[in-house]
């Protein structure tokens, strides 16, 4: 009887900790991805400013000299992928947070799963001062 209870508690704790760890991991991942997104953005900006034909790219620890045009298209492709990845992580994060709260016997965050209103739709409400 005692053993069963202990096992149950342990199982529960493992479940909660695992989910919590996953959430923290995802948060970290988003930060890293955003960091890369900002670096890419800076690079793209500098490429448009410079008028050289070729530029240096770092891939891992290797420096490669490349055509500016090709480098730009590579960066742009990377940006698109980063945007998609970040959005996907954010969406999954919501589900995970709600699952964790469910495990911890807390009510779900109100309105977490709502589809956001467009700017035009909230305009009337914010003009009237109901929402800031």
């Amino acid at each position, binding site marked *: 009887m005692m053993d069963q209870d202990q096992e149950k508690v342990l199982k529960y704790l493992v479940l909660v900790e695992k989910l919590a760890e996953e959430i923290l991991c995802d948060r970290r991942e988003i930060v890293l991805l*955003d960091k890369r997104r900002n670096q890419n953005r800076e690079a793209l900006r500098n490429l448009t400013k410079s008028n050289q034909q070729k530029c240096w790219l770092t891939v891992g620890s290797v420096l490669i000299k490349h055509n500016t045009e090709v480098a730009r298209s590579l960066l742009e492709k990377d940006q698109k992928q980063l945007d998609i990845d970040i959005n996907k992580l954010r969406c999954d994060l919501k589900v995970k947070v709600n699952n964790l709260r469910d495990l911890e016997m807390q009510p779900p965050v109100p309105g977490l799963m709502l589809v956001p*209103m467009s700017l035009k739709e909230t305009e009337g409400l914010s003009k009237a001062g109901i929402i800031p």
Partner: protein
Amino acid sequence: MASIAAAQVQEVRSITRIERIGAHSHIRGLGLDDSLEPRAVSQGMVGQKMARKAAGVILQMIREGKIAGRAVLLAGQPGTGKTAIAMGLAQALGPDTPFTSMAGSEIYSLEMSKTEALTQAIRKSIGIRIKEESEIIEGEVVEVVVERAAGGGGARVGRLTLKTTDMETNYDLGAKMIDSLLKEKVQAGDVITIDKATGKINKLGRSFARARDYDATGQQARFVQCPEGELQKRKEVVHTVTLHEVDVINSRTHGFLALFSGDTGEIKSEIREQINSKVAEWREEGKAEMIPGVLFVDEAHMLDIECFSFLNRALESETAPVVIMATNRGITRIRGTNYRSPHGIPLDLLDRMIIVPTTPYSHQELREILNIRCEEEDCQMSADALTVLTRVATETSLRYAIQLITTASLVARRRKATEVSMEDVKKVYSLFLDEHRSEQFLKEYQDEFMFDDGAGGDNAPQMMEVSQ
């Protein structure tokens, strides 16, 4: 100009509200534990265990959205805590659930019809939850550089460096952004947010790391932590608005100040229908959630037969709030008719209701309540004074005894005592009459009063009934 006005409005709002001590200001919840069992004394609630447990069950049903379209009646003698239970319910529901409290007689107004007043009250008790989302860039300013292009031409070049605890990045700025940064007087060390869609800049405050930059700072200087995590964040804000608020915005004819002046007048039913269909559309798209709230009607016997039949119909609607009524009447005439009915409420409506009775307090409970009220009114009372006061409460009424608390404490303060003694209570008891002694006095000296018909006694209660 507009920004100055807005700043002033914010200042007015920030002034702390003065909390009044009301008759039920000591109530902070229903005083139940996690398994809905009432605690003897908790959150300002004393006794009345059955009614509180029933209210707890109702609370749980409201939270799960299961009770919409039904009504609850709190019935009991005067001074048995009906309003207290409703207030406790409101507190326990939290600020997110709309709770409207009205007295039954509030619907009789010259400015709007009875049904309009009821409809407004009902729509005030239904909330919708909506979400706003925006992509923002949030960070601490490391440096802002604005350069004029050589030769004094119009084009300016700007660069902004922002950081969080995890990263740092540069932004090249266009002319418009430079203008708004200059307008907001953004400088290194400020923590700002930039809305990506609108480009609006919002200064959150100065970073703690820069707190020692200047020796003297203005009063408005607010220090905040350097933001954490990513620079480009997604901010989601969930708002709860009531249907009535949406009605008012859409029906106003003279600017949006109508909402604040309180004088909204009648709202056309077409507008309500339009809003209902819009809200239904939002719900379909997953953009809004309904929150059925609570409408509390105190002194429900003051409603008349028209209101009751209107409520009967309104409760059928799929977006009806939970209606809680309280009454202290027994079997009495339904207002607007000559029929008599329990609680003065027609039988068909009574049939829809969950009836929760409240019973008179015991001696010990009265003592506990008086003790809580003493704390609430900041009044030290000695044990024997409290005993006397409890006796007064059992023999007259709880309300009268509560009135004596403040008066007795004033008497005690006059003789520069820190504690209210038995003598103080006795003194105010002789100074202020309760209802019984007042009546006795009138009976004794009725001949000396003006316009006395010498009736007294038996006929008096009938005269109090409201004439139609």
